[in-house]
């Protein structure tokens, strides 16, 4: 009895000393020769040292330029920030009020956020489907395939950084040109619009069709953001052994069946990578309204604490969706061992 009591009483110290010992083991021991580390000259210890030295730039960078600022901005999001010229800033604790400000008081933020989430869902599903279809097509033999490949990967360049953002400033002109085009075609016949009105009048599953039409309206954005995804899918498609298709062909499988039974399951692990990449890419774009709004709050309204809270909410939402997506995919993905 007494023994047990003594042990539970010292359990905190035990945990602390154990953690310290583990930290020492992990971080320092491989580098210490002599009595601290009898294994110093073994291959394992040597490899550990080499590995740590190779990734040292990353470790330093991660701690100094990532972890520290991240913690700092987390603490900023819980404080009122006042800039002191020449000496950084002062903070005073005010718990969750920055978050409350971002979600309740600020009139635009939550609206932008919701809008962004809906657009993200629609866009990323469409991007995944479209990039998969394009990758399957580009993997087939046809005339002009090389040219098509060159063009399809062009968005990797054209849709990066400042270029799509500057397009957004062009809005006024786009509206104007749309109007002139409307006037020009008002006498004519507009195929897509008449189909759209026909379907919405017929009233069958009009909500679903609304989403579909929204996707079709944004097809340019979707194609522009699917360059990398196509490359990844294409890489996956090229690793499927031909013998699988031959076997299926001999057994009398049609092309459609072998697509669903071979191609799709073999490429499905890449859905995870691509899905995560798509979601992150969408959340971090420069022309994204939420990112723009956070920047405005920070650099023009100088509400540092509030903007930190907003970016943490934004990051939390992104992480949440990435988590949900990975969960769904990893439940249904088939891994092929060769």
């Amino acid at each position: 009895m007494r023994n047990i009591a003594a042990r539970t009483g010292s359990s905190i110290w035990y945990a602390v000393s154990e953690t310290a010992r583990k930290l020492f083991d992990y971080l320092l021991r491989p580098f210490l020769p002599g009595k601290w580390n009898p294994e110093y000259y073994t291959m394992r210890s040597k490899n550990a040292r080499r590995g740590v030295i190779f990734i040292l730039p990353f470790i330093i960078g991660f701690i100094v330029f990532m972890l520290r600022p991240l913690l700092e901005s987390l603490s900023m999001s819980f404080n009122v920030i006042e800039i002191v010229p020449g000496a950084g800033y002062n903070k005073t604790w005010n718990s969750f009020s920055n978050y409350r400000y971002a979600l309740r008081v600020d009139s635009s933020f939550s609206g932008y956020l919701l809008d962004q989430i809906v657009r993200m869902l629609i866009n990323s599903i469409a991007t995944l489907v479209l990039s998969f279809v394009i990758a399957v097509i580009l993997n087939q033999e046809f005339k002009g395939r090389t040219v098509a490949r060159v063009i399809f990967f062009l968005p990797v360049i054209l849709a990066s950084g400042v270029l799509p953002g500057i397009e957004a400033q062009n809005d006024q002109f786009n509206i104007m040109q749309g109007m002139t085009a409307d006037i020009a075609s008002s006498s004519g016949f507009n195929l897509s619009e008449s189909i759209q009105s026909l379907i919405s009048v017929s009233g069958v599953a009009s909500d679903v069709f609304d989403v579909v039409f929204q996707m079709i309206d944004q097809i340019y954005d979707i194609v522009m953001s699917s360059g990398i995804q196509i490359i990844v899918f294409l890489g996956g498609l090229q690793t499927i052994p031909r013998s699988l298709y031959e076997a299926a062909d001999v057994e009398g499988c049609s092309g459609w069946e072998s697509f669903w039974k071979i191609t799709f399951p073999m490429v499905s692990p890449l859905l995870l990578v691509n899905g995560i990449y798509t979601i992150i890419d969408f959340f971090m774009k420069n022309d994204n309204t939420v990112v723009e709004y956070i920047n405005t709050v920070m650099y023009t309204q100088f509400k540092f604490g509030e903007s930190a809270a907003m970016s943490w909410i934004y990051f939390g939402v992104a992480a949440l969706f990435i988590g949900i997506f990975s969960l769904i995919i990893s439940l249904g993905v088939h891994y092929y061992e060769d």
Partner: protein
Amino acid sequence: MKTDTVRTKRSFWQENRRSGGYLLKKNVKSGSISLFRWLLVFGLCFMIIQPLLMRLTTSFMIEQDLYDSTVIMLPRTATLDNYRIVFELLNLPKAILNSLWTSLLMAVCQVISTTLVGYGFARYDFPLKKFWFGCVVALIIIPPQTMSMSLYVFFTNFDIFGIFKAINGKPLNLRGSVAPYTLMSLTCMGLKNGLYIYMLRQYFRGVPKSLEEAAYVDGCGTLRTFFRIMLPDAVPIILSCFLFAFVWQWTDLFYTRNFLSSYSLLSNELNGIVTRMGHYFATTAGTAVIVPPARRAQLISIGVLICATPLIILYLFAQRTFVESITMTGTKM
């Protein structure tokens, strides 16, 4: 021999009848599939190319052409006036030169550090490896916007363990120089560096281990094995990482705005083109005027063209490197 000549004389319809209608069905099916494929590919390619062409042609138009709905694609009266204005608005030679050397510098730094780190993750077993790799994934996922404010303050009062304060009496102000972003690039914290680490690790993991073992047996040290055995084979993937780093750095706005704002870089200049246009038109007209939207669109499209043209040329030359090394590493993501 005889049967062959008989077969060639038979017409398509005879063949079709012999096969019980199968031949026709097959031909129609494959023909319609390739037609559909061609339509889809052509349509999507057109959609990607068309805005570029559009920008190219509108940049030569005069303002009236844009309001005229009978002018489609080709300008009625071609002019170079818009280009002259853009060259006056933006300090182009300087911006291009600055963009060139900063992008090169950053891309080189980023590629060196990410190659080392990727190799370390692929080949060595060390304590906390899984944890650090989790950090790489975090680096990919966490938006850099979350940290910009804190880094701003950090680089304004830069100090390593109080060394600079001891020498100078005050911490260094690194803002306005390339130092902050170079430091970040050297430590894998630049634009999308998590992705490059991931790609390089995937590549190095696929290289057979026996290569290095043979080198070790023959008496090569760690560094020599890395530089003599691993690097020469990895040139294509490293080159493609370099190209990505260069291209994305060239167009990047976030890092340039935060860390390189004092240099007139192409992306920064381009971002400010609209406000500058306002000033320009105000000074030429003498009073404050609204920039006509058509004019604005033309000037923006010239800016985009100037920014994108070098990259497109680069891409056309290095297209294979861009695509194929990703397909190489993409295999087992």
